[in-house]
């Protein structure tokens, strides 16, 4: 399987919201490629929208990256939410129970409204 290595694109949106769009597979190889970027964002930002629509696979190390980032943002009083996971990624998130702790949105407008409140 040849697929582009996971990477992230970061955009600063209105209202102090930072969008992190993730591309590719959040597997062991992919996580190594993006974890430093996630750690920096979690350290610096307070309102983080993680756009998962271009993530094609999520393994437990990927979940760990999301959880650790969320914990770091929450520890500063901020918020991190997830947007638009594909069906297989959504199943892994819900099987882990992560949706009980991190909000998952399917509407970008609703996600932005939640972070902007």
């Amino acid at each position, binding site marked *: 399987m040849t697929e582009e290595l996971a990477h992230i694109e970061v955009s600063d949106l209105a209202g102090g919201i930072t969008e992190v769009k993730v591309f590719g597979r959040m*597997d*062991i190889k992919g996580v190594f490629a993006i974890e430093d970027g996630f750690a920096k964002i979690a350290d610096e930002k307070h309102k983080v929208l993680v756009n998962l629509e271009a993530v094609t696979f999520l*393994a437990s190390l990927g979940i760990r990256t999301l959880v650790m980032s969320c914990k770091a943002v929450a520890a500063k009083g901020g918020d991190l939410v997830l947007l638009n996971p594909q069906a297989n990624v959504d199943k892994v998130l819900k099987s882990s129970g992560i949706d009980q702790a991190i909000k998952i949105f399917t509407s970008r407008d609703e996600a932005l409204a939640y972070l902007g409140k």
Partner: protein
Amino acid sequence: MAEALSWHREFTGDMTGLVEACGWIEELSSGHGLSDDISNAIQVCFEELASNVVRHSGDGLWKDPTVDDAESKTALVLKVALSIDDRKAELRLEDNGKPFDVAAAPSHGVDQPVADMAVGGLGLHLVKTLSTAVDYRRTAYGNEVKLEFSRVAMQEPH
């Protein structure tokens, strides 16, 4: 009944071998008529189990004190097998690392607010949730874990 398919291969128990093994499992599980759901479950479970072995068994391989076979236990090795038939896919992972009973190990989903959330045990919870059966046994070689993914229980047309 369609012919059963099976593959097996060995990998070094390091990060290079792990990445290679994950790629091999991805290719096999995606290319032989399994549903996306089962293919995804196999890949998620394999990566969790194999990465646990590589990350936690690398320092000092388990040696049975009653067996004088130190020469044969000098490097961590992952033995991986996948078989697919009409009813199920079965993933088997053997390693010569220290004993670790995956089936009996504590696991948990997320049941706390994010600030209190513990990450450890989450991966094993996923393995137990996404597979239809988990079987562990300690063999003369080391650990053997078998995961079953029922094509019937997971409602896959075939």
